[in-house]
């Protein structure tokens, strides 16, 4: 049933469209055109966050009591459809979709009052201090230590792959507070109010595409009050797991993002010569590959819709979270691969300078190839971050085989 049959939803969609068509600043559209990663330019993310906050639309998945708009599932779907199909940057997931739900679930009244409103407004931004050099897929073996010193902890150790650590002002952290019992039992979840406490150091990591996106974060005797624990000491793994489920289930809107990517692929094919007087879009090899991706897209969209219908308390919810992570990231990668396959040699040119927002270096013609290679390189991470494909398959195997 088309939602527009319901007059209120039709009006709702018009209001969203009107805003998105008329009130987005140029630098955000520039960032949209130059996005080469799962993570768009941070400045554009925060511009949009603050802009949406003025409408009360920055945290649409949050319950109303914490500042959500109180929309129905259908309204949220319409919003994401209109928002994502324009390629606009999603709100920073680490803040809005990870630490915030964890604070809602495990936080004290004081923590909720202190942290949630500035996340909703965009005043506070967070990064995720989980992975360490020797604790990636095996997260539970993490070694970053918080030793008790009166009413403070003293933190020593290192985090890595911390996306946007050099952009944000807060970090949530998994630390080891005990080596007794199972490794899960000695982990504590900490909320850190600054990225520049004495003893903290952030070093950006340059990716294959030449851009900094992740960072290493070092802790050398960093003092943090014990009131910064979320949940209770040594119970951080429960919080961490809850948050990871939110990370995997985030958004539920890959179908709209990837619909746009598939359409961009066609545009690229329409402007690219096949060398024999026609465009790549009429090349049978391209057409077949593209048709296969269309089938994959339909399966993904149907899977997301199913997951949304059954909700997060259904026995299959965990299956669907891993399935969607696998399938959405596979499709993301395959689209970037086909884009590279059909681009000419001009896509091989390193155009980092032209990719910066506000850059005065013009992209080389045709502009469609500008993002192809950096996107291809960057998207190699899609099957690694947020639980690698191998970890997702292990999770699924456990769920499916033990049934």
């Amino acid at each position, binding site marked *: 049933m088309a939602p527009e049959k319901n007059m209120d939803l039709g009006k709702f969609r018009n209001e969203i469209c009107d805003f998105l068509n008329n009130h987005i600043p140029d630098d955000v559209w520039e960032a949209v055109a130059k996005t080469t990663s799962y993570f768009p330019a941070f400045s554009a993310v925060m511009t949009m966050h603050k802009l949406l906050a003025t409408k009360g639309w920055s945290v649409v998945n949050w319950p109303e009591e914490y500042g959500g708009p109180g929309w129905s599932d259908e309204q949220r779907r319409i919003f994401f459809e209109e928002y994502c199909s324009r390629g606009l940057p999603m709100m920073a997931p680490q803040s809005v979709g990870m630490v915030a739900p964890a604070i809602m679930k495990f936080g004290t009244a004081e923590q909720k009052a202190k942290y949630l409103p500035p996340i909703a407004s965009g005043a506070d931004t967070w990064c995720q201090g989980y992975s360490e050099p020797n604790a990636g897929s095996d997260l539970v073996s993490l070694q970053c230590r918080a030793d008790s010193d009166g009413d403070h902890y003293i933190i020593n150790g290192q985090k890595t792959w911390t996306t946007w650590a050099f952009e944000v002002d807060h970090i949530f952290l998994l630390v080891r507070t005990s080596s007794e019992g199972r490794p899960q039992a000695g982990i504590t979840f900490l909320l850190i109010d600054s990225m520049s406490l004495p003893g903290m150091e952030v070093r950006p990591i340059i990716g294959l595409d030449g851009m900094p996106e992740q960072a290493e974060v070092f802790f050398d005797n960093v003092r943090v009050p014990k009131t910064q624990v979320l949940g209770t000491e040594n119970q951080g793994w429960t919080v961490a797991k809850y948050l990871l489920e939110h990370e995997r289930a985030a958004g539920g809107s890959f179908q709209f993002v990837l619909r746009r990517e598939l359409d961009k692929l066609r545009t690229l094919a329409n402007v690219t010569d096949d060398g024999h007087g026609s465009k790549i879009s009429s090349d049978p090899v391209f057409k077949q590959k593209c048709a296969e991706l269309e089938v994959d897209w339909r399966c993904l969209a149907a899977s997301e819709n199913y997951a949304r219908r059954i909700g997060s308390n259904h026995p299959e919810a965990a299956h669907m979270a891993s399935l969607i992570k696998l399938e959405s990231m596979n499709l993301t990668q395959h689209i970037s691969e086909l884009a590279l396959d059909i681009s000419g040699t001009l896509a091989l*040119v390193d155009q980092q300078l032209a990719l910066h927002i506000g850059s005065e270096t013009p992209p080389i013609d045709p502009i469609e190839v500008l993002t192809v290679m950096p996107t291809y390189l960057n998207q190699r991470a899609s099957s690694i971050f947020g639980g690698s494909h191998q970890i997702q*398959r292990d999770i699924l195997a456990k769920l499916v085989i033990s049934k």
Partner: protein
Amino acid sequence: MSKLPPDILAQLAESAQKFISNEYSFTHRQALASSTIGYSEKHWQMFADLAWLAIPFNEEHGGLGGNIADISGLLEQFGYGLIIEPYISTVVLAGHVLSNANDSPLSQELTAQIISGNVHISLAWQERQSSANVMNIKTTATETEDGYLINGEKISVLNGLNADSYIISAQSQNTKTPSLFFVAADTKGLSAQHHQLYDGHRATTLQLQNVLIPKQNQLVVNAEELLKETMTVGMYALCCEALGSMEKLLEMTIEYAKIRKQFGVPIASFQALRHMISDMYVTLKKTRCLNEQIASQWVHHSPSPQDIAALKVQTGKAAHFISRNAIQIHGGIGMTNELEVGHYVKRLTTIDGLLGNSQYHLASLANSL
């Protein structure tokens, strides 16, 4: 099949291995890639001294008298060591044209200059609309009283930054067939825009506006056969380089899987990863077999268009498969610019893109069956 005697080939292989282990640390390579000219002139002179630049040229022109199969081992070493010196553009592509051009004083002189390491010459064949079709040429050459007047645009000219001169393909307005012309880089009317590629190599877009060259600069008339053969030779050279890079990626991945521990054990003990590594090996080995079979049959005639297209398709597919799995098994660290892995991946990705990628040649193959 090789033309050079086995002892010469063994010497070449040994000198290449020595060069890579003694002269080519990854840090040094990266410094060269980001330097102004993008390679080392000192290395290039070593290449000349070691006779690497002479291999495919005839003995009467000062070469070693080898053929394409004789440089395959060297190119594989170049791939293994991630060598950034522009061997393929100057020696393989431009070199092949000169070896087969009219036996004029000009082409003899240029050959001698390449062998001595004194010049770089780049073949400018590709155009905006041509994809990898070497016969799709819009650049024109009009004969005038003073010589030839050339107009058009060439893209992705390898090592154009360092080229002292270019060999340019253009439609001759008289014969309506493609010819090849020698154009010095400082010729009036020629303008160049130089780019760096993601793998660190350099490529240039050339604009030719009423470029006037003397008549003796026409190197080849009716160049269709030679252009196609040069593409074949260049594709084969790229495929050999790719073999070395894939070999190194597989080695690094196996090494890493053995030392990287998660869940208390080396990740090489996980069946899922063991199977990925097996598949990488299978992919590389069958690509190598195909490559070697094509080389061994390369005696009296070049490989058929279908054979060379199949090799380029398979090499491109293998390059992507091995690259993607190498990164996946390395995990996050494989995504960093600091580690060698990503730079091998970028070179392999570029190799697939040059002289027609797997998509292009798969379509040609499909149309030829």
